[in-house]
């Protein structure tokens, strides 16, 4: 097994529902503010950084290679190279594991890794017809050519392409993310009530965690322009959530006979998270106190239609690598993209038939202890800024393990397009 990767602290912004306070900051500005603060809090000499790797899905056009722009806006020196990574919902984890690979190759000693997303600002685009009109106009060399281009206009040209809709739709299987959740709801016979119940639990756990200050140490207050009021905590948690309110919602992705609603799905969110990584031996040598360690990781692929099962595929692969059992993971952060998808994973983990059919195993992977799963709430309450979540799960997991004096945990995500990511983490 390779050497463990030390995670030297982790910090994130509050997660805020799209259209809320964080909509005023582009994802690079948000991440830069966070990282500048993070480096102060860590008391880490930024000149020691060898690289910056940031996960981001929407890749705003004004920030080509957003990691580089973030790095320089955060005050990290010009000589530190940076690159941006993209593995859909696991982009935050991709940043961490890419960093791990480079550390193990000994190409870098300290890497800043993280993720950021401002889903509020994913743009509307001119459709193909309108874009062609603009191109024709620009190419036109005389007045008559210009006129011809302009006269080709039809009102339908103004119908925009909605960036976020496109981004959340898998063009290969032609399903959007919510629709893949419906697929799993059917495959695993998950009822509307069960999904709403999980959603409710997520809000309740998150609310309790926020109330007892669990999230305070990992969250950096952000002054948001134009008034620079400080956003101090995640604002998506519904502290008064109840089954009645959840039951009132109509299914969103399948209007006719679906079960997935906006209430039992994670909201569109803005946020960023970051951490500094080095080899365990480097941390020891420098007398640093890591927040925790990355033991191993795995990515797995599956059909896009059932992408929600990504966690079980990836975890199975991870367990083969490390030899761990499900019960060895004392806490599990399994991203709540959709309640249906979480429940599907729970049932699949416990099912011998699933393991035999899909994982090439003789026994069920192992039932997940409900007390160990997402004990402080999940994305349904906190939100899922797609580029950042992977990093947040790692930070939250390590903080939870530390606070409960536990040792070993699993952070795992389903990935749009049909993948899963699983990271094995340890505290000491």
């Amino acid at each position, binding site marked *: 097994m390779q050497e463990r990767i030390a995670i030297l602290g982790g910090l994130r912004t509050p997660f805020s529902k799209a259209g809320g306070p964080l909509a005023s900051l*582009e994802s690079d*500005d948000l991440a*830069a*503010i966070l990282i*500048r*603060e993070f480096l*102060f*809090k860590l*008391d880490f000499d930024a000149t020691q950084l060898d690289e910056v790797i940031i996960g981001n899905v929407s890749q705003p056009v*004004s920030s080509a290679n957003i990691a580089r722009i973030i790095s320089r*806006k*955060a*005050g990290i020196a010009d000589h530190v190279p940076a690159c941006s990574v993209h593995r859909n919902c696991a982009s935050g984890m991709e940043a961490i594991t890419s960093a791990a690979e480079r550390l193990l190759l000994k190409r870098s000693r300290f890497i800043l890794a993280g993720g950021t997303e401002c889903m509020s600002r994913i743009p509307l685009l001119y459709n193909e017809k309108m874009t062609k009109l603009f191109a024709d106009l620009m190419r036109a060399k005389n007045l008559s050519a210009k006129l011809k281009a302009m006269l080709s206009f039809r009102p339908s040209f103004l119908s925009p392409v909605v960036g976020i809709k496109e981004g959340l739709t898998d063009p290969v299987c032609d399903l959007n993310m919510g629709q893949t959740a419906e697929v799993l709801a059917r495959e695993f016979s998950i009822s509307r009530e069960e999904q709403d119940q999980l959603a409710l639990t997520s809000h309740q756990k998150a609310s309790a965690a926020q109330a007892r200050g669990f999230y305070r140490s990992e969250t950096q*207050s952000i*002054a948001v*322009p*134009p*008034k*620079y*009021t*400080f956003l*101090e905590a995640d604002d998506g948690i519904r502290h008064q959530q109840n089954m009645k309110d959840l039951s009132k919602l109509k299914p969103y992705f399948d209007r006719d006979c679906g079960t997935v609603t906006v209430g039992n799905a994670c909201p569109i969110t803005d946020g960023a998270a970051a951490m500094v990584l080095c080899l365990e031996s480097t941390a020891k040598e420098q007398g640093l106190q890591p927040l925790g360690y990355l033991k191993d990781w795995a990515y797995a692929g599956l059909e896009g239609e059932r992408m929600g099962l990504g966690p079980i595929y990836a975890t199975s692969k991870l367990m083969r690598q490390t030899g761990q059992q499900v019960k060895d993971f004392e806490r599990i952060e399994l991203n709540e993209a959709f309640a249906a998808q979480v429940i599907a994973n729970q049932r699949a983990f416990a099912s011998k038939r699933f393991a035999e059919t899909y994982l090439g195993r003789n026994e069920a992977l192992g039932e997940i202890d409900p007390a160990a799963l997402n004990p402080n709430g999940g994305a349904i309450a906190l939100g899922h800024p797609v580029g950042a979540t992977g990093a947040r799960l790692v930070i939250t997991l390590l903080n939870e393990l530390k606070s409960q004096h536990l040792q070993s945990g699993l952070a795992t995500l389903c990935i749009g397009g049909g993948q899963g990511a699983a990271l094995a983490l340890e505290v000491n």
Partner: protein
Amino acid sequence: MDAFHLNKDTDGLVHLTFDLPNEKVNKFSETVMEEFEAHLKLLQGDATVKGLVIESAKNGIFIAGADIEEIKKIEGPEHARHKIERGQSIFNLLEKCPFPTIALIHGACMGGGLECALACNYRFAVDDPKTKLALPEVQLGFLPGWGGTQRMPRLIGLQASMELITTGKALDARKAYKQGLVDALLTPNRKQLEFSDLWKSILNGTFKRKPKRNSWSQTLLEKTLIGRKLLFSIAKKKALEKTKGHYPAVTTILEVLENTHHASLQEGLEVEREKFVQLATSTVSRNLVQLFFSNEAVKKLPGCPNFEGPVAPPRYSGVLGAGVMGGGIAWLLSSKKIPVRLRDLNLEGLQKGYQTADQYYSQLVKRRRMKPTQKAMAMQYISSDLTLNGFNKMDLVVEAIVENIDIKKKALTQLESEVREDCLIASNTSALSIEDMASVLQHPERFFGMHFFNPVNRMPLVEIIPSSKTSPEVLYKACQWVKQMGKTVVIVKNCAGFLVNRILLTYMNEAARTLLDGAEISNVDRLMLDFGMPMGPFALADEVGLDVGLHVAQTLEQAYGNRMQVALPLSLAHDQLKLLGKKQGKGFYLWKGKESKVNTQLVDALKPKVASKTIDDTTIVERCIMIMINEAAMCLAEEIVTSPEQLDMAMIMGTGFPAFRGGLLKYADQYGLTACIRTLTQLSQDYGERFAPAPHLIAMAEKQQTFYPPLN
């Protein structure tokens, strides 16, 4: 003298290189002009000369203009007329050369230097940040007298010329090219090669100037009689609004441009000449010329220890107290790409700091001096915290917290335990004692006062106040850093109020006292605006905040006693009526946005305290100005600053005291020191002992001295 070198190349092109010996800049003094004329006459008589290119050997300077020392020494109208005649005729000679003449401009090309270039057939500019073209004569109270008002409009049109000549603003090479002031751009590294290609094209007639394309509005406004009348009447109106008639050069320039644009060059030059003579011999112009020299003197940082070597800017900086001043200082530091960390007691406090910095950046974006993306980048340099986390990295920390000596002392002690030993610590206090604050520090040698003025983005002055323990190295570093940030430093000896506020408060108190003698708030403000202050004293009090102002006034009363007694209206407004000023919407005025009207509640509350007498306008102004002169004399005697130039520059830059009056002490000189003493004595009999003439004033008058050396 050999100010010029000549070199004729094989094509017959003469390179006339201007390199004034023993000077950093090229300037047209009388002797240089004579030499220039002699060279021109020789070249004109030489049939082998095919062309002339005028260049400079100075780094960053083409020709900086006429010699201002000589202008200062102009004795009277005849002398001025002679200077102008000479310059005009020499540049006419240049214009009439029988071969093409080219000005190769690399660096500053100002005033007479630009007028020389305008008399050439072609102007080529090197695209380099150092290249700047301007006619800044208006800033010295006169106008371009060597053909600038005639040749510039014929080249780039009336509107553009009006703007450039009345403001004196500088164009960089590209803008000059776009406006047609310059005919071609050269790149710095290839300028000789590119020039020689251009010269060849001039020789064979293929050189094409940029076609002047007038916009519709330009044609309408400039080429028709009605258009021009409209253009000039609007320009005159705007000029009067801005200058309030105090700066005659601006309106005179417009007159000259209007009256001569259709005239022949000769007629135009005559008008230009006479108007120059009129302006250059005026008091306003003399005052502005003096201020030019005072500014140069102040830029040399008198009182600053004489160390050598470059000083690197701070790598990290911090600001304690994120109010309007803290936020403004953070704006300044971040605008110079210095990371700055705001620290305050609560998030609302930090918010105010961010908002202030954001506001100043937004103003730049609105005026198109900055793009929104640049603003976002600049704001990134500002971070914040409720703790002192990160302060161990600081090279400079400025405290701008509430004006309470105990709170400040506590904060400084706490700060010192976090910062490195060699971190510089400065206080932005307006009135508290630097010496007292230094006493609580373990390492007071790195501590000093650094007093910014509100608003930080627009006020160029910074008072630096060393304590007795401040080390010379620290003082030098501090002065260099402030200079790098683009502000003007005046080193001030520690006393309550330092220099500017100490003098200003006497004026504020006095203005308030006139109310008790029957003066009216709006009238006093109007009188002081007419005098030339940018804002009336009561509008200023509201702007600063009555709580802030009162606090300073009380501190000064404690330090200086009776003559600085807090005027009753100030304490009544704040303590009794709980008025705070503009931030609250009510003070001496009631404020609604930019609109204001006198606060009748305050007027009524003051009525019982008003003595039943009247006071005339002249006395009001005398009281307000003389009290300042008196205090200024005391400051000089106590060596709070070491020269009248510093004092006047500080008052102009820190309070907007009218520059056209040359400054507070220049005004006193012009009023006459004996007359000042007479007026002060009368005022002390009528209004109180505080007007008793300062001993320093009396001593100077007895010895027939003046603050400034007399003109010739």
